[in-house]
């Protein structure tokens, strides 16, 4: 699967509070509304500026903090095609796979704000069209590939009636 879009860069330690702030707690049962505030505390204008298909590019420990699955969900609802980071916090990473949001571990120092990227999920490559460089991302564990290929954990269970990992 090929994903194409523009890079929006964020620094290290982007927390789930940056992504889905607690003051919008009352919107958690209304994901399209909550998605209008996605990443608001990291970049207040992000939701208005980005175009569906674009990439969120972080540094180290992306998604640290709370277990709120709303965080990867609203990134997806906003139309972001994948999150790229040097490393991810554990719960965010697992949640992203569960909701079908690709999360790619790679050297994001080689990506700048506004770069156009072409990601080949099956080959494990990110082509930075601004620099001409090809960046590799780490393969997911098999268990997660199975879940992601089924379209997330709920779809995995719907398909098999149980865990088939």
């Amino acid at each position: 699967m090929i994903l194409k879009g523009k890079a929006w860069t964020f620094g290290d330690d982007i927390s789930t509070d940056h992504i889905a702030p607690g003051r919008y707690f009352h919107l958690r049962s209304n994901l399209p509304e909550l998605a209008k505030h996605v990443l608001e505390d990291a970049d207040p204008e992000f939701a208005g500026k980005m175009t569906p298909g674009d990439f969120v590019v972080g540094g180290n420990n992306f998604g640290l903090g709370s277990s709120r699955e709303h965080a990867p969900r609203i990134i997806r609802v906003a139309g972001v095609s994948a999150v790229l980071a040097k490393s991810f916090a554990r719960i965010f990473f697992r949640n992203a796979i569960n909701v079908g949001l690709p999360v790619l571990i790679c050297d994001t120092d080689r990506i700048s704000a506004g770069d156009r990227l072409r990601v080949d999920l099956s080959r494990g490559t990110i082509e930075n069209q601004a620099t001409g460089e090809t960046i590799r991302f780490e393969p997911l564990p098999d268990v997660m590939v199975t879940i992601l290929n089924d379209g997330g954990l709920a779809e995995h269970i719907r398909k098999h009636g149980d865990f088939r990992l």
Partner: protein
Amino acid sequence: MGMTLAEKIISSRFGEEVHAGQFVVCKVDVCLAQDGTAPLAVRELQGLGLERAQDPARTVFFLDHAAPSPRRELSNDHMFIREFGRKTGSVVSEVGEGVCHQRIAEDYAAPGDIVIGADSHTCTAGALGSFATGMGSTDVAIGIALGRTWLRVPETYHIVVKGAFQPGVEAKDVILHLIGMIGADGATYKALEFSGEAVVAMDMSDRLTLANMAVEAGAKAGIIASDEKTRAYLEAQGRGHQYKPVVPDPDAVYERVIEIDASSLVPTVSFPHTVDNTRTIDQAKGIKIHQVVLGTCTNGRHLDLQRAAAILKGRRINPSVRLLVVPASRKIMLDALRDGTIETLVEAGASIGTPGCGPCVGVHMGALGDGETCLATQNRNFKGRMGNPNGEIYLASPQVAAATALAGEIADPREVLQ
């Protein structure tokens, strides 16, 4: 091959010996979600046609983050959760009963259990010798319906806390010190296993504080072997029969061993906006604080309130500060009412909130104004955490919180205790 606590507990639930790095699908004992994460979990189950709980008596929904509800959307979420609880026979812990992790320690988790929760601080229950870990709503939903989850057995960092604390220093200072040392991602995917003289000497209250913050170093779980203190705690909750010894093998293999000398620690403060941005009290003293929060799943227990009350007794807080106290559970509030702790705190100028999460999550009550500073006993100080990205949050122990409330600026409790 010797096993760590994490390996022992997961092996026991999986039914055969497993070690770090292996993937398993295994039985879970307790599932929890709270008012911020349960609605999504319930909708997932409805979407799958799996509106059931495998073990309803140990499936618990907590109304604690927005309790009492500040607005109708959240009141409607509460109604939705109550209805699912009624349909499936699962437990709903009502408004005012307390914050989920404290309630799980009081009434549900036991040594050797696997606890999964749609809240990152689910790791708190590791203090009882459980393997307890936070997950998202979908993972917990599936755990509720099937009674099982998938896990990768984590590698373990062994955290050995030797010696004894100086007066004015406590478990919160150990865990802040550790996170400052290894970083907010210093233990990502790992289990932390706490031991050593200082941990053995700790009451369950302080052990819960240690385990609570394991996730702030990125860890999957924070676990403490069960012992006589665990037995005594369970007995005090009327659950003595659930005690069993859960200890690591002497030849367990740890990925890393970190030794901390408790006697060398001083009160420690996390500066905005990350938990690992720690300084010693000398570097923090004198910073002007507008709001002090004493409470939460990290430090809202009876012992925490008592320690603060010992500093505040017979004194008044600085008029430039408001002091918000939120007991972690109704049970704790009752204990603190009965022994006069609440009276001492209120006489000193504190206002008391409904047992629950309080201002920590920024959902309601205690939101900061633009440019305001808060010193809180909670576990997180991320930007925007307490309802305003233009506020600044410092994290510290209940004793630092009390000394700070008296001074109106960050203060060293050891100077007040002298």
